[in-house]
């Protein structure tokens, strides 16, 4: 009894010190924004997850007849983790090129499930599976249209789920491009009122899709030979990594390996930025190809060509990898919408894909909040101030973390869950 009490007293004495320390210093360990983006959060600094998260992959069947080359696609794949009691239901929207089982989605899902939410995660509208099955135009990137597609999918999923779960109220969150999309979906919900979201969280969102994508593409300007030499650049980075791996006693390409490579400064800053841009290119290559096949757009695949499973796609892969987001925008995306809306200027289209087009709503809606980082490079100079101005007290800005590197950090996850639970910001 005595010992217990003294332990308790020591604990109480220590508590405020810890609390104070946590308030004053942000302890996310990776200082560089590119490195943070690549490495994420070390395992031991993530919240502990106890117990199994019952994540199920579900298929929303679509009756569209698909091109033969997509024979493996049987409908929109989403993931769900349901509580066995009444709980709030949160919809998650993945970031650019991400599916409903991408690591960040699974991390959010696990933590939110453990915090007592029902969770349903949707792939990004830029994800091939979404382009094929859920996009009305099959041309991703037009945020108001993407929001309509997302909302329709959410309604369909809700219709098949509502018999199985008890829901108290609805919430919405998205990261990266998914965060920007969440704002558009929230606005749509104000008219449709199917969910009447109580709270909407935008995690490291872009302000303007065009600007953010251009900034990521811009990272390739600093690799040797520029964007046309992504293949050579990739080979060089792989070679360095392979040599480093062979020298050390690593058991696999895991956190230990990545952090060791970071500590050894295996890549310089330009190379780290280049790797981020290359992974962006890899996912956008899938997007461009899927969209082109679905619309018979004649962009990288010959128009009217019926691709068979045995056909080689390697040349299309290589071509798509070398096309930048700006190429896609100027040569494919803009002409597509211009042909449907004659007189639409490029500037107007760029403006429509920005939070600025729904600024009035965002500034006045108390339910929407933003969590981002001071050094998130998908934001152009001035855009962070813009977000501060629009969201006022409803924005939380961490000093470091790059683009989503600190998403899984303990403090971030705790804060995020706390915001979703609270009635006011």
């Amino acid at each position: 009894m005595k010992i217990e009490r003294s332990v308790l007293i020591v604990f109480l004495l220590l508590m405020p010190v810890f609390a104070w320390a946590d308030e004053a210093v942000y302890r996310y360990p990776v200082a560089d924004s590119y490195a943070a983006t690549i490495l994420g959060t070390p395992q031991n600094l993530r919240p502990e997850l106890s117990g199994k998260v019952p994540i199920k992959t579900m298929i929303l069947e679509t009756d569209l007849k698909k091109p033969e080359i997509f024979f493996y696609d049987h409908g929109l794949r989403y993931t769900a983790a349901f509580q066995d009691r009444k709980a709030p239901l949160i919809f998650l929207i993945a970031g650019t090129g991400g599916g409903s089982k991408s690591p960040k989605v699974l991390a959010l899902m696990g933590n939110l499930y453990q915090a007592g939410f029902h969770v349903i995660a949707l792939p990004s509208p830029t994800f091939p599976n979404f382009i094929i099955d859920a996009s009305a135009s099959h041309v991703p990137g037009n945020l108001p249209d993407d929001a309509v597609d997302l909302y329709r999918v959410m309604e369909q999923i809700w219709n098949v789920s509502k018999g199985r779960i008890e829901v108290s109220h609805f919430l919405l969150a998205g990261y990266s491009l998914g965060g920007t999309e969440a704002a558009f979906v929230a606005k749509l919900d104000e008219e449709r009122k199917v969910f009447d979201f109580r709270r909407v969280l935008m995690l490291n969102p872009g302000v303007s899709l065009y600007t953010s994508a251009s900034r990521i593409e811009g990272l390739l300007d600093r690799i040797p030979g520029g964007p046309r030499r992504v293949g050579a650049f990739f080979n060089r980075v792989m070679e360095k990594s392979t040599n480093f791996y062979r020298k050390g006693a690593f058991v696999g390409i895991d956190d230990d390996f990545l952090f060791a490579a970071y500590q050894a400064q295996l890549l310089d800053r330009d190379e780290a930025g280049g790797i981020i841009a290359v992974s962006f290119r890899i996912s956008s290559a899938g997007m461009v190809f899927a969209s082109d096949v679905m619309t018979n757009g004649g962009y990288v695949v010959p128009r009217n060509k019926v691709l068979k499973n045995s056909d080689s796609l390697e040349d299309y892969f290589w071509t798509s990898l070398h096309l930048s987001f700006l190429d896609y925008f100027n040569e494919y995306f803009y002409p597509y919408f211009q042909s449907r809306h004659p007189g639409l200027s490029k500037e107007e289209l760029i403006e429509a894909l920005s939070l600025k087009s729904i600024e009035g709503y965002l500034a006045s809606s108390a339910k929407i909040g933003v969590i981002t980082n001071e050094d998130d490079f998908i934001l152009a100079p001035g855009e962070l101030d813009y977000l501060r101005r629009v969201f006022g007290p409803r924005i939380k800005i961490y000093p470091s973390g790059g683009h989503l590197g600190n998403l899984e950090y303990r403090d971030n996850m705790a804060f995020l869950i706390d915001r979703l639970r609270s009635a006011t910001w």
Partner: protein
Amino acid sequence: MFRYLIHLFITLGLALYLTGCAASATHIASEIPPMHTVSEFSDDESVSHTRDPWEGFNKGMYKFNYEADRFFFLPVVNAYETAAPGFVQTGVSNFFANIREVRTLYNSILQAKGKESLVTLGRFLTNSTIGIGGLFDPATSFGWRQQHEDFDRTLETWGVGTGPYLVLPILGPSTVRNASGLAVDGAVRWAVVSSIDPFGGTGAGSEIETGATALEAVDLRHREKFRYYESDYPFEYYMVRYIFSERRELTTIR
């Protein structure tokens, strides 16, 4: 009877041929070259160095494996994971891993790797005895890490090139050399098992062996987390091919 069959084939073939003509006649929309082609980007270094002359066949096999998984292996694996408790699954994995130590042992010897051979021999003896026939893996906790050697690597140390990329039925991504290695290791195992004849006294030796082989197949699929087409990435085949060759690159020349 034979005649009837020939007749049937000719009729069927003719019918298929005619519908083929009809089908191609309706698809007269001619192909128009796309805005961008690969020739624009030939000044960049290519990333994949894997020789894949049988790509059409390989993609067919890749698809076959996907369907085999979908309709057979994954349902079986799911049932296994639901029915068998976790410790049983681990025991099964350990048991077959222990048997595979024999493969690692003779291949390390063939490659003249003294330390690996000793560690593997130590592991096999320890796990077979203290580990109760391989169900447990105490050797790892003694600091003897599991080694992986197979005849493919033996061929490599003997200077045999990998040969073209080859997607095998059920087993998946491979190379010609790797496939030969698998065949040799399989043959050695068959020879060893039939000479020892461990279940000979039971009167149902071949049934038990078949069951063991099936269980090993289930265990292999259970431990392999990869799912065909799960990435939903249209170029998954190429990514898998690249990662396969990189992974070998990482693990072999160490």
